[in-house]
């Protein structure tokens, strides 16, 4: 399969990327592990692909009570990164994404804004209270991930919005977190995935693969799953997926608690 005709431009810095993105039907490419497959299927037919993969937006750094993850950080880099205690879910999730080749190129920023309803890391970022820093021609803004994800492959970001930072608050001392999923055996995408953060006095669970977007469970996880809008498809009926959601939420909670000192 061959993508539809397109033009390619490599951005030299963030301002240059924003300028290039001002053209009609321009699309950002980073690792390309989500975009190129949909370009080959011709679901995406950008007239210009703006390559940001050589910008300095990678790496993991803890400062000011938060962990800053450059959006171009690959899954492989993230899986190997030293993270503060309590953020175990990030490395656990990164190690299991796609396969070795996809982890070598696929980036956290690209995955999050692709907004696949079954992608793994958004659930982890939601459970951990993750936020995105966005640069646009109007300036800089900071937005929570739940406000970005609107629906399947749909975000609140505009064509000239570029993610420049993925920010995760450092959890309180003694916290633990975990990610658990049941995958479709061929695609590797989550039929149901759950991320859990166990801190003293509070537990947060977020699900992926079961609804229009990954989402945080409010209140008791079992009751929230029973009341949630869950979809069914040819791989897993609604009833089966709801059952899986309970299982993965429980598994994530058990390992998050085991990692916490709460």
């Amino acid at each position, binding site marked *: 399969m061959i*993508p539809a005709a397109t033009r390619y431009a490599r951005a030299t810095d963030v301002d240059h990327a924003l300028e290039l993105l001002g053209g009609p039907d321009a699309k950002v490419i980073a690792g390309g592990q989500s975009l*190129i497959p949909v370009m080959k299927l011709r679901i995406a037919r950008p007239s210009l692909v703006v390559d940001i993969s050589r910008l300095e937006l990678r790496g993991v750094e803890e400062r000011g009570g938060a962990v800053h993850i450059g959006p171009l950080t690959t899954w492989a880099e993230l899986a190997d990164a030293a993270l503060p205690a309590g953020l175990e879910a990030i490395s656990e999730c990164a190690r299991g994404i796609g396969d*070795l080749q996809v982890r*070598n*190129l696929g980036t956290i920023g690209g995955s999050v804004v692709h907004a696949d309803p079954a992608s793994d890391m958004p659930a982890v970022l939601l459970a951990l209270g993750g936020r995105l820093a966005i640069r646009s021609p109007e300036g800089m803004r900071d937005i929570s991930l739940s406000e970005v994800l609107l629906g399947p492959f749909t975000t609140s970001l505009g064509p000239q919005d570029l993610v420049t930072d993925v920010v995760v608050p450092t959890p309180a001392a003694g916290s633990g977190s975990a990610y658990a999923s049941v995958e479709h055996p061929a695609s590797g995408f989550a039929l149901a995935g759950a991320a859990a953060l166990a801190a003293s006095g509070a537990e947060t669970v977020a699900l992926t693969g079961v609804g229009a977007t990954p989402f945080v469970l409010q209140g008791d996880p079992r009751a929230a799953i029973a009341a949630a809008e869950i979809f069914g498809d040819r791989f897993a009926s609604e009833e089966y997926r709801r059952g899986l959601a309970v299982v993965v939420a429980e598994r994530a909670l058990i390992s998050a608690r085991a990692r916490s000192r709460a």
Partner: protein
Amino acid sequence: MSRALQLVVNGETRSLEIDDRTLLVHALRDELGLTGAHIGCDTSQCGACTVLLDGRAVKSCTVLARQVEDREITTIEGLAPDGGMHPLQKAFVEHHGLQCGFCTPGVILTAADLLSRDDAPSDEAIRHALRGNLCRCTGYQGIVESIRAVGAAS
């Protein structure tokens, strides 16, 4: 519209004229005659098109050729110098790591990436690394044994 591009493949700088939309696997096979990168599924699943990019395994059907300008690309043709055999290639012969051979270039390059990070990988690590390479002949046992043998010899 074709434009000039330079790729560094197997240590040589090669000049080609390709469309912006050209995928790396097509540039390698159709423009440079390096047909060791196979097209299997063409949907980023099977890993037959795997090549090394700066030493890391990537699926060349899921990379635009222009994205990898000036970076080091290694295909199966360039894994061992001067027409010799790489230790992985020898091990695959000795341990029945292949049958039809279609998936083999991709599997070997994935294994080369794994061994560059972990010189004595456990069977679990080998199987985890092979997740993105489909083989429909061997049942994987021979592949795992071949990679384990190279790890043990290191």
